[in-house]
């Protein structure tokens, strides 16, 4: 049997292969140099300004709106005639304490307890005393921030602030809180204890800071 002849390979042609990564179509455009981009039209300017304004409203608008929504509401709550707190809208007086004299403002599960007492010492001493004599005796577990933060009220008085989390009394859920201690030059001490179930304090803390900031001590 005659086998068919094997296929003869085609002779290779000499063909110049274009260089790898040869000029893409875009580069071809160099034959016609691209025109100089025109100056931005008025609408580009307007669009950019509008976009910048939108960014501003989105980023800062919440703070402005929240400020407008938290106006002082009702008369100030006074304790022993030396500490006065102006409740913001949504906050109401939930109770008063006897010794030392104090009051509680509430909004939902957010609370601000504040007491007034005579105190000879620094605001750091006052906050330590509050932790030792009030928080620790009432807590089954307590964790207090190691560092105290300095705060200055609108009136110019300065104080310190600490945070805590713990289990108190028969409550099943952890309580998180923030204590601000202020001592006036006249020896009036004020404790502001903001607290709520764990995870909820963040939703009222801005209100509470505003009320403390505007509080009058002494």
């Amino acid at each position, binding site marked *: 049997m005659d086998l068919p002849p094997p296929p003869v*390979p085609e002779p290779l042609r000499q063909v110049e292969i274009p260089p790898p990564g040869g000029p893409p179509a875009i580069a071809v455009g160099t034959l016609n140099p691209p025109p100089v981009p025109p100056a931005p039209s008025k609408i580009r300017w307007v669009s950019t300004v509008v*976009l910048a304004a939108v*960014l501003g409203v989105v*980023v800062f608008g*919440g703070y402005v709106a*929240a400020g407008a929504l*938290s106006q002082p509401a009702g008369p100030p709550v006074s304790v022993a005639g030396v500490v006065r707190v102006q409740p913001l809208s949504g906050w109401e007086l939930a109770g008063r304490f006897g010794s030392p004299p104090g009051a509680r403002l509430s*909004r*939902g599960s957010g609370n601000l307890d504040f007491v007034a007492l005579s105190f000879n010492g620094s605001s750091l001493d006052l906050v330590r005393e509050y932790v030792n004599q009030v928080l620790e005796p009432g807590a089954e577990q307590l964790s207090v921030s190691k560092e105290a933060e300095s705060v200055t009220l609108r009136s110019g008085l300065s104080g310190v602030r600490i945070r805590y989390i713990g289990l108190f009394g028969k409550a099943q859920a952890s309580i998180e809180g923030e204590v601000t201690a202020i001592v006036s030059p006249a020896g009036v001490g004020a404790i502001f204890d903001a607290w709520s179930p764990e*995870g909820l304090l963040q939703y009222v803390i801005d209100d509470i800071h505003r009320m403390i900031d505007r509080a009058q001590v002494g």
Partner: protein
Amino acid sequence: MSVQPGPPAPPVVPVRPSLGRPRWGHQTSLFQLRQPAFWLFLAVVLATGYYTVTQQTLFQRISPSGWALSWLLLLLYALPIFAAVYLLDLYEREPLSLVVGALIWGAVAATTLAGFANEGWGFVVARIGGPEFASRWTAALTAPLTEEILKVAGVALIALIAVDEIDDVMDGFVYGAMVGLGFAVVEDVLYFIAIFGGTPSGVLAGFYVRVISSGLYGHVLYTGLSGMGIAYFVSRRHEATRAKRIGVALLLFLVAVFGHFLWDSPFLNFFPGHLNTVGDWLQIPLAAAIKGIPLLVFVIVMIKLARRRERGWLELALASEVGSAALTRQELGILLDPHARRRSRRDMRTRAGEGAARLLRRLQREQINLAMVRTRVELDDDPALVHQRAYCRSLRDALMAMPGAAPAMRPTEPPG
């Protein structure tokens, strides 16, 4: 054997002039110093970049190993997503400077601004609804709107900087998805360190929850969708009324916001409350799928529609070139179908080796570039067009000279 262009053949698909002319031939970089939008982009990125670097430095100091592991894992996730999104645009890949700009906007500007915006609007929710309501609803009522606006603003800036690059909705998806990818990566690092504890085991748990279980459904989809809306508004000026363009853009944006809202809200929440058993861990991807798959399907449909339209553009741009030295009717059929393109290269590799397959890839790329040139010039004998035709022909000649290459050039089946 020599391959000569055959006699002029009718185009595979009839020309559809109603599609208009894409502007594929234009390529613009991010650095348009004459555009006010560029300076706004730069100012915001620089201002927020300082904050981002400070935050990342803090994370790195808190947990060096957790921070490094976070970035390593997220790069493993982000690089394939980046490649997949970038390559989605089959015919005209977007300029890398703009794509990277979109990524940076999402990673640096949008994340930082969103942090402030969410806090501010969170106060509003708390003021109106009280702490209990706020604890359940703040995320759902703030983040979808603030974050989607801040992210899509990046696409809008790119459209203002380089409007020629937004040819159709697919381009908007690419830029939007890149913004979303940058946002997701930096937000995930924040979650891994601040929420999942930052230890290596916490980071791994976070990676499982936020990336393996939910990585398909998040910011990439949301911003990709709203980016399509921006692109629709920009690119359909000659085809749709202003009202329709605004309506479509708004609708796509609202769909993205709704998808984000659904994800953050207590609705359809089947995530386990505690992670005590293997079953709890397995429940997470199922719960994520319930919330995320509807939007994923919607986006896939939108992408398919956008790709169909791009294919129509390619047909339109190359119709007059069919039968020229640069393009045969069969080659156009292959170009129009990504699967046929891959199949033809595979076939070429089998018959003529890797070098021939690479050359065929170049030929196909240059034939697509021919479409770009075709859309840019007016005259049939424009020097750029003539040059590109000659270039394509020289590539084909070179390919045909390679042993075994010629048979594989013939497509088996032009796609329908």
